[in-house]
Each structure stands twice: as structure tokens, then as C-alpha cells.
């Protein structure tokens, strides 16, 4: 295939986009963002609720409104608002949600991101994906049916991913004659879940999604309810963390270079805390530290950068740091972990296999797993934890995970981004489970007959072509991981020797 016949070059001056310089009035930047999740059991009206909210409160495009008006009708002769969310052909045909839908709308000062999740148990993995991105969850309950197992499962997942701010929406109030006693009953039942999972500020609102009662506008059918509509309530909730919390962490994604300017920047997104030029930072695994010389971006340098910013940090001495390391505040560094205790939700249809090859994906590291020991599962009826050794799809488990080499990790309650992980199937690449670290330890779990894959063994043949650079080290680790996985799938318990100690 060849280039297309040359066309006369446009005069470059015509490429300069004309502006008149009144941008701020036309398109002010919004000062905040709030991500809202819907969840709850199947058919409780999640998609209808969000569809109705978009219909009433946002400037939906005319062609989208027209399409909905032409489509099928539901109770009360209203358009089927769920069609605004359920965009897959299979979803429309079956009238259910399969995967999460993302929708966006703006109020005067803020961006709302709405994530509509499926209630069906089979698609719990998709709900878990959505939940981990949300700041607040709207938990729906059908007024006729009350709390179901799936309601409890979703509540447990909210707790797992660290989502504590929940709004209870008791839906389909039209089908229970707008009954206050029914609403109070469900509100009361929900308290058990609130206490169990420590949800904060859990406000309860009676709604009817199809008719829009208490969705954007206050309902005329429930004089006994004097609280805000759902939208009014959401507008009161503060935006997502603009306050840097916790000690400084930056998982290193890649190393950027400019040979002309003698620049070597460790690139990443600051995952917690604040960093300033002149601060000492440490790489916990090598235990070496250095001072921040420059915080650089393409636009400008910063004296200080905070959580959420994507930057490149240049240090005053060249640490052997590459992808997978976490730069941290030395006084409160992450654990250099060989064993973690974790809570996770099993997302794969293939159950946990003691002999399976798994990898742990942390913020930027990928570490082979030498052993997983399931300790207990959450019982969704009693909400109690029972001892267990097996684990299958949609289970919420507590387990010990032994890592094939040391990596920097936090407890989730201390630093969410460096304290969460995904379990990956080494062969298919699939994401198997998503979890949070409850404790991390540098101790190596005792195991019989463990084969130790040493650096010397690998350096001799398989990795003899690798240069002694940070990138080389990353490639060395990658190969070591792969060899460990192959051995493991052949039934050999294996461990990868750690980096040599750099303590001087």
C-alpha cells in the first residue's frame, strides 16, 4: 500500500485556528467532578432512574429525545428511559443491563459522571468494575420486594472497593401506593447493611423512576416526604478528592529521557500525597533514596505536585529505578511485601485453582504468585464470614497471597491506589479477581520444597543479552516471571530471587 497522490500543500498560515479570546465565557472549566454509581438487584429500575434523570435534568440532544419518544412505552405510558443507558443490542432485546454504561452531564460548576451497573448476578464483575470508579453509590431497592441477596452482594462490593457514601433510593413507589410505611420498613431493613459495612451519610429517598417522582423534581404524591429529590441531594455531595491525602506515593510507569538536555525523568501519576522539589524520596525495594530535583511536564515545571497529577520526576542521583517501583515519602514508605492478606471479589467464571498460574498486578508492577490460600468467604445471607478453602465466581474472599518476589505495597485503608490489585491469569491474560490489601508483610510464607530461581541462573543463559540498565532490569524481571510461571504450571513451587540489596 502506498501513499496517496500528493496534493498541493496548504499554506501553513491557513492552519492557524482563529480565536477571539473570550474562551472563559463560552466554555468555563468545571471545578469539580463527581462519579455516581447505580447498583442494586436486577430490575429494581437502575437504568430507568438514570435515563429519567438525564431526560429531566440535562440537555439531551433532540435526536436522542426523538428516538426515545418513538420507541416502546412502559408503565403509565412513559417512554422507556432505560433505553438511554442500555445501548447494546442484547440489552435492548432482553430488557436487562449487561455491562456498565457511562454517561456525562454538567451542572453550573461540576461534571457528573454516571455509571449505570447491571443488577444481574451473572454480570457482577461489571458492577465491580463500575463501583471501583465511583465516589458515591445510589443503591436501588424495589419497594415491592425489599432487600435481596444481590442487594447485599452489591453492598459488600461497595465496601470492598472502599465506597462508603451511599444513597438509598426506594423505587417503584407508584406500585405500593406511595406508602410511607413500606418506605420506612425498607429504610429500617437497610440499616443492618449500613452498620455492617460502615456506610456514611446514607440518606434514603422514595422515588418512582418512570414518572420522575423525587428524581430531579420533588414528588407530588408523597406529601409525607420532606427531604430533597435525588438530584438535589447529589448536588450537595462534595466533589471527588481535591484534598491530597496520605503520604507521598508515585508508582513509576516508565522512564523518559532527553539526551540533549541530560534529562532522565521517572514518569507516573502521583497516587497519594504531595511532593516538592527538594523532598527526599525513597524506592522501598532497593531502600535507596534521593532528592527531587525537578518536577517536569511538557507545559511547565512545578515546585510542588499533588495526588492525581501526571508528571516526570528527576532525581539528584540516578537510582536504579524503573517501571514497577513506587517512589515514596521515606518516613512513611510502603511495605516491601512478600506476603499479603487481601480481600477480593472473584470475577472469573473459572473457579480458583490451587495449581493455577496467577499474577498480581499492582499500580505498575506485575508479580508472580507462588501461593494463594483462601481463608474465608463472606456469606451473603448472614453477612458473616465463614472458613473456606475454595472460591468461585462472585464470591468475596479473604486470602493470603504469597508473592514470587518483593514489591512495594500499602494497606488499602492507608493508600487506596497502592493498596489495591488485580489477580491476572498468567496464561489467558484475563482479570480474575479485584482486591484490596488488608495487611502486607516482608516475611516469606513457609512452604516445602520451594525451588529458588536465582539471578545467577537466569543471567547465565536466558538473560545473558540484557544490559545492566533500569530497562534491562525490567526485562530481566519480566523473563524471570515468565520462567517462574512455566515452572509453576508444571507443578514446581518456585520463587524468584529478590534484587540484590543496595544498602550502603
Amino acid at each position, binding site marked *: *500500500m*502506498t*501513499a*496517496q497522490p500528493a*496534493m*498541493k*500543500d*496548504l499554506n*501553513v498560515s491557513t*492552519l*492557524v*485556528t*482563529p*480565536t*477571539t*479570546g473570550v*474562551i472563559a465565557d*463560552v*466554555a468555563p*472549566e468545571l471545578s469539580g467532578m463527581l462519579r455516581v454509581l447505580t447498583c442494586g438487584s436486577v430490575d429494581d429500575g437502575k437504568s430507568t432512574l438514570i435515563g429519567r434523570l438525564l431526560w429531566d435534568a440535562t440537555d439531551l*440532544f433532540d*435526536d*436522542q429525545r426523538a428516538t426515545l419518544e418513538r420507541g416502546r412505552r412502559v408503565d403509565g405510558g412513559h417512554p422507556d428511559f432505560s433505553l*438511554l443507558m442500555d*445501548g*447494546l*443490542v*442484547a440489552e*435492548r432485546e432482553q430488557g436487562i443491563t*449487561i*455491562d*456498565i454504561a*457511562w454517561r456525562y452531564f454538567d451542572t453550573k460548576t461540576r461534571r457528573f*459522571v454516571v455509571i449505570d451497573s447491571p443488577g444481574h448476578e451473572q454480570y457482577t464483575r*461489571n458492577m465491580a*468494575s463500575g463501583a*471501583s*470508579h465511583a465516589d458515591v453509590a445510589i443503591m436501588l431497592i424495589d419497594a415491592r420486594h425489599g432487600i435481596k441477596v444481590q442487594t447485599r452482594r452489591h453492598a459488600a462490593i461497595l465496601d470492598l*472497593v472502599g465506597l462508603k457514601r451511599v444513597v438509598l433510593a426506594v423505587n417503584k413507589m407508584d406500585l405500593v401506593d406511595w406508602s410511607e410505611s413500606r418506605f420506612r420498613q425498607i429504610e429500617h431493613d437497610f440499616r443492618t447493611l449500613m452498620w455492617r459495612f460502615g456506610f456514611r451519610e446514607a440518606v434514603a429517598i422514595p422515588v418512582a423512576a418512570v414518572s420522575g417522582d423525587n428524581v430531579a423534581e420533588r414528588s407530588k404524591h408523597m406529601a409525607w416526604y420532606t427531604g430533597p429529590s435525588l438530584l438535589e441531594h447529589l448536588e450537595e455531595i462534595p466533589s471527588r478528592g481535591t*484534598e491530597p491525602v496520605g503520604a507521598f506515593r508515585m508508582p513509576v510507569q516508565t522512564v*523518559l529521557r*532527553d539526551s540533549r*538536555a541530560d534529562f532522565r525523568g521517572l514518569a507516573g*501519576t502521583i497516587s497519594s500525597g504531595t511532593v516538592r522539589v527538594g523532598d527526599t524520596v525513597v524506592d522501598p525495594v532497593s531502600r535507596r533514596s534521593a532528592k527531587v530535583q525537578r518536577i517536569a511536564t*511538557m*507545559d511547565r515545571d512545578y515546585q510542588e505536585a*499533588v495526588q*492525581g497529577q*501526571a508528571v516526570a520526576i528527576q532525581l539528584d542521583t540516578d537510582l536504579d529505578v524503573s*517501571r514497577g517501583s513506587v517512589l515514596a515519602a521515606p518516613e512513611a514508605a510502603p511495605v516491601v511485601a512478600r506476603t499479603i492478606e487481601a480481600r477480593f471479589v472473584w470475577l472469573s467464571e473459572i473457579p480458583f485453582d490451587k495449581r493455577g498460574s496467577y499474577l498480581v*498486578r*499492582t499500580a505498575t508492577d506485575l508479580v508472580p504468585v507462588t501461593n494463594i490460600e483462601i481463608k474465608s468467604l463472606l456469606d451473603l445471607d448472614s453477612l458473616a464470614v465463614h472458613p473456606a478453602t475454595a472460591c468461585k465466581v462472585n464470591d468475596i474472599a479473604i486470602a493470603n497471597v504469597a508473592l514470587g518476589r518483593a514489591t512495594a505495597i500499602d494497606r488499602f485503608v492507608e493508600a487506596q*491506589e497502592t493498596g*489495591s490489585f*488485580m489477580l*491476572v491469569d498468567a496464561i*489467558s*491474560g484475563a*482479570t480474575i479477581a*479485584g482486591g484490596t490489601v488488608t495487611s502486607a508483610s516482608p516475611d516469606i510464607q513457609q512452604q516445602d520444597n520451594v525451588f529458588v530461581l536465582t539471578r545467577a541462573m537466569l543471567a547465565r543463559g536466558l538473560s545473558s543479552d540484557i544490559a545492566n540498565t533500569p530497562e534491562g532490569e525490567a526485562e530481566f524481571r519480566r523473563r524471570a516471571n515468565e520462567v517462574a510461571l512455566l515452572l509453576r504450571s508444571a507443578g514446581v513451587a518456585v520463587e524468584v530471587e529478590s534484587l540484590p540489596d543496595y544498602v550502603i
Partner: protein
Amino acid sequence: MTVEISHLDLLEAESIHIFREAAAQFRKPVLLYSIGKDSTVLLHLARKAFWPGKLPFPILHVNTTWKFKEMIAFRDHWVKEFDLDLIEMTNHEAIAKGVNPYDYSPSIYTDIMKTVPLKAGLDQHGFDGAFGGARRDEEASRAKERVFSFRAEGHRWDPRRQRPEMWRLLNGRLGAGETARIFPLSNWTERDIWRYILREKLDVVPLYMAAERPTIERNGQILMYDDNRFPLKPGETPVMRSIRFRTLGCWPLTAAVESNAVTIEEVVAETLGARNSERSGRLIDHDQVGAMEKKKQEGYF
């Protein structure tokens, strides 16, 4: 201390993070460049992600040969300016057989002229991850897509088997025969794109701004007469109108809107007040219900 971070700053940081993750995790990524406003933002963010280094991957443009002339000129200008490594793919066999947007339905034309050469390009070069500028707010099936979106052999998308994606963690490990699409602009809206273009003072193809251009009106849609391959029906003559485009594609398949917005601010002001979604100007999306999803299952980007 409370730090005010605007929503555009949050979106920018998220996109840069995605670029860096993907570049580190995939063996041989490529950036799909379509010259429009989304591609312009995508390219700008990629440059920020890897500054001061060069882009660590090439860009790929699928040229149907029915693109607006100004688009190609714009592309070539920036490829030179940023020292980009451009790969162009065109289905020359189909052109030789006479495939064109007039005698073929939009969906068949799109498949032959866009999807086929795109897949060929990815396969020939062995790219295992391809960045695209798709946004979730564009269309109902896009609203369901992950940031790392996996394709089975033959580039097929199976919307029922998407990988879970939790927190900021991105898992790009591929199974046998799999490749990935990567969407750094997933959470951007059309308005954000314009706001960002203004803020960063980016140049866009002049077709986004209104000007007097030769047009033909058909079935209530205004089309631009870009060259004499446009088969005029009896009685049709090009009429000069002040028009601009909300999205850019192949000129026979992209409808214009009448507008007097000649500066980018005026375009943004009009966009903020727009009553129809941007894709309403794309003739291919009107073909059938679930059209986009179907195309994607067949390997469309």
C-alpha cells in the same frame, strides 16, 4: 490545603496515565490517527505523556481517498512538524474495482474502505495495541466500552466478555490471538474536546470553522462538493453556503451544518447549545439500529 483541580486537568492526567500504561504494557502499539478534532487532542496528549522523548510508537491513518483535501494537508503538516512516523493504509484493490461511497451502502463502503485496510495494517505490522480517540459519550455502545478493550482473533469485539477494569489498574496482558484497543479519551465529552482545544490553543482542520463552501443538499442533509467525483443528479448544481462540520470523515458521507461560526470560540458556543448529537451528521450510523455495535463486532475500530 485544598487544591482546585479543574475537570479538564483531571481528564488530561487520566489520559496521560493511560498512554504511559499502554506504552509500557504492549509490545508494539500504534496510534490510530483520523485527523479530526479527537485525533488532534489524542496526539497532543500522547506528546505530553512522553515528553521530552519522541512518541514511542508510529501513527496509522486509513486513507479511503475520499477524505476532504484539507484533512490530508493538515495531517502532512503536523507529521512533519512533530517528526511523526506515519503509516498510511489504503485499500487500492477495492478502489481499482470501483468501490466508492455512492454505489455502495455506507456500511459496506465503511467495511471495505476502512475496516479491511485497518485490520490489514494492524496485522501486517504486528501491532498488539492500537490507540483510538473514541469517547464514551459518542454513541450508546461506545458508552459501554472499557479503556483497554480486547479483540479476539480477527479483531472481533465481544461486548458480553469485556474484562473487568478496576480502580486505575489497567491489565494489558494478552491471551493467544488477542489484540487491544486503547481509548485514552474514554471519559471526555464533545464539549471537553472543544474546551481543551481552546485552552491548549490547538489547531484543527479549518473545516470545523464556518466558511463559504460549495454544497449540494440531499435528503435534508448538506454535503460539500469537495471535488468532481461527486456525481451530480440532473438539476443539481453546487450552491455556496456558509457551513462547517461537527465531525470529519469521508466527504460524501459527512453532512455539514449551516453556520456562521468562524472562530473557534464561536464554534464552541454553538456546540454548547447544539440540539443534535455530533454523530447525527454521520450517514453510516443511521443505517440500522445497533449499527455501531455490529460494525465493532466485525472489527471496526
